[in-house]
């Protein structure tokens, strides 16, 4: 019994350690080609981005403090991929795109895009 328990724990821990997400910067978004970091380390921002976004939105909406730091619009501007065929941006919440790829794995719904724009503003 004890051995089974140890093996079970071992499997779980191995699973956790191997459940590293792929670096999602595999598309053709601006962020992929960026050489310097714009925000905190990936692990920190993955953990803290809900807090960053929530505090930032209150600062912007209620106090009028408009910065690029922690801005959802800026996240999208940098991380949106472009469709190679049409040249248009792909929505960040579509399958396998920036937001969905992680959020689908952790089964957390993303409420932002019922209101927020899903692609950078296209300048024609």
């Amino acid at each position, binding site marked *: 019994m004890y051995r089974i328990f140890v093996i079970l724990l071992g499997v779980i821990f191995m699973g956790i350690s191997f459940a590293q997400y792929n670096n999602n910067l595999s598309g053709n978004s601006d962020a992929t080609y960026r050489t310097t970091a714009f925000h905190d380390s990936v692990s920190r921002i993955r953990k803290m981005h809900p807090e960053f976004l929530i505090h930032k939105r209150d600062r912007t*909406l*209620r106090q*009028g*403090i*408009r*910065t690029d730091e922690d801005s959802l619009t800026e996240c999208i501007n940098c991380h949106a991929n472009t469709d190679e065929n049409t040249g248009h941006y792909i929505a960040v919440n579509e399958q396998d795109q920036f937001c969905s790829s992680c959020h689908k794995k952790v089964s957390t719904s993303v409420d932002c895009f*019922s209101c*927020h724009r899903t692609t950078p503003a296209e300048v024609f």
Partner: protein
Amino acid sequence: MSKALNRRDFIKTSTAVGVTTVAAGVTLTTFAENKEAVTNQKRWGMLIDTNNLTEAEIDNMVSACMKEHGWGSELHSTGDQKPSWIKKIKVQDRTTKKITSLPLMCQHCEQPPCVDVCPTNASMKREDGIVLVDKHLCIGCRYCMMACPYDARSFVHEDLTNQKEHMPRGKGTVESCTLCVHKVDNGEQPACVDSVNSDAVIFGDLKNSNSKINKTLRQIQSTQIRADLNLNTGVRYSGI
């Protein structure tokens, strides 16, 4: 004294120049980014002179608002379900039969009934007087729409896509004129004001005695719509 620049002077001068250049650049970027919270030192307002505002200009105001914020092209909403952040109103005096046209939008009251009744604090007033809906908190109960004396608020009745970057809007929440807060914070004027090429619509800081709107309000007769409600609106009208 030799004209040749010695090392010490060179270092001093170039450092000074360098620091000044960088400092100038840094300061300029900070002003453009607006890192300070707005205060109640200013109160934004608008003065609309209905005598000098033509119907075509009012129509332009409505179109400019639609274009700036991305409303007006909803597919499924019909009739009274369509959003109307700003509308053209024609009123006729019952006795004299005089007809006046005016644009009607959120009046950005100092004592907004919509802010009083919102159960979640989604309907809010900024320090500088602009009344907004925090759509992150809006549960879509529409009580603010019941409470607004100016029918200023609209409810989004369907799914929306392709929103403007600076104007998130979504199904199930309430929206209204924001006094183009994203432009105002950038030192610009609301889109509707920009669309009128005359002094028929003036936008500015009501508290600043040097501002055009303040000076004009001191000189001419103006009114608030439903002044008896004592809401102290930010939008004033002359000519009605």
